[in-house]
């Protein structure tokens, strides 16, 4: 029996107005992507708590994506600016912890940028596949 090749599992937090829309547009444009990513919808990227990102890694995510609207376009005025502040702390912390930086990404994607979303997913999946499973993954989780 041939063992199936290991594929990374990526958790993507997407904001309802922009990046979730971007993921939709990628689908509408039929931009094919590897089946690595699981999107979790929030109303605004500002809702994303570093707590959720930790949880994702501890549950077994090989990479976590924090996405939202471009700066200046936030549906709620400036939620994404706060996301940026918190993300920088998260980034510094995970780097200090020794987690490879390719496992955490911040990307602003508008609802019209379907192709860009697809590229992003393909890109991250390929990079993380090379890195292998996350060192924080619990035993027994694929």
């Amino acid at each position: 029996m041939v063992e199936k090749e290991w594929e990374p599992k990526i958790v993507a937090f997407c904001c309802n107005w922009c990046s979730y829309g971007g993921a939709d547009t990628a689908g509408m444009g039929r931009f094919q992507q590897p089946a690595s990513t699981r999107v979790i919808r929030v109303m605004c990227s500002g809702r994303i708590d570093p707590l959720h990102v930790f949880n994702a890694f501890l549950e077994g995510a090989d990479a976590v994506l924090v996405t939202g609207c471009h700066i200046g376009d936030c549906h709620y005025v400036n939620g994404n600016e706060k996301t940026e502040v918190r993300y920088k702390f998260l980034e510094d912390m995970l780097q200090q912890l020794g987690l490879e930086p390719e496992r955490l990404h911040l990307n602003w994607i508008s609802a019209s940028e379907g192709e860009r979303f697809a590229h992003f997913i393909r890109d991250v999946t390929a990079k993380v596949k090379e890195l292998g499973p996350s060192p924080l993954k619990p035993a027994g989780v694929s």
Partner: protein
Amino acid sequence: MVAVGDMLVGYATDGGVRKRGASGGLVTAVLAAALEKGLVENVVVMKHINEFEAVPIITDDVEVVLASTGSLHSVPVNLAKYAVGRKVAMPAKPCDAQAVIEQAKRGMIDLDNTYVVGLNCGGSMHPVTTKKMLVEMYDIDPEDVIGEEIEKGKLIFKTKDGNEKGIAIDELEEAGFGRRDSCRYCTIKIPVNADLACGNWGVIGDLAGSATFCQVMNDKGVRLLENAIEAGRIEVQPASEKAIAIREKVNTAMVNLGNTLEGKILTEIPDEARIQYYLDQMANCIDCGACKEVCPVCACGEDSKCTMFHSLVDDYSMSMYHLVRLLHLSDSCIACGQCSDVCPSDIPITILQSRFAIPAQRKREYTPGMNVDETPPFFEVILK
């Protein structure tokens, strides 16, 4: 008349207080006067147990204040939480003052009602370690000790028989004794974030050992001193240029030492080895939650994100509790060392916190606990 920015030298008018105090009893007298004249309702002081131990108490009795101990190096407790919800005057090491300000930023302390009399601090030590050190390095019976002081880089103990013995601090620390880890790499030695910054650095000549140097940091500091002067409890005079220069010199030497030791204590870990290092360090955690209880910067109640989303049942590789604390404190940890002190599994939590906090704070050019108007960077609404 006292003004903000004044550099003064002073002492308690009461001879007994002056003699018993570490250097002139000014701080004790100022605290007593604050209570006496109704500036505050209570005072936080250290109640003397023996030469190595004292406990913080809150009192409304002037006599108790006057009888309180002078500064002891073997008492590392952080006093900030004693000021929460009260109108107090308190003595404060720089880290106590930092914690007070951080609590004020989080609405827990009203700075208008809290008088902070800062004390210079070269570092504190654990009482148990200190007693062991006396036996092993000094060959002195702890019961015989009647006094201690740090002078010119030496820790000197005075014994009942009138003798004294001093050993260089570096020598003690090389041998595994001496100051707590976090004190060694601390670089805030003069409490410029308090209302008054007091200590014995810069007290020279005849007054050496019997007067306190006092820098007036703000309006509340002015009020404290003027109040004590009116009450007849203290006398002050301007400090000489030479005294000011000496104080600055001592401070610079201590700060430089702190910077050097930071490199030795917070050793570089190669990138590939980091995760394993942290996994190993956190492996022995028994989830007692003492580090959170004792943290003087933390304003959360019993239930907060670090506890509510952490569960032993989850069988994660790393503790969610610690990850959240590391994140939430990366902008605000003042490296006071309380967490390492209380950990029953001997996890050097302060060092772990500092590995994240020091780079995060430096990168953002932010020092917690210095100015109540500065927002902790994690709560900024825009990236600066």
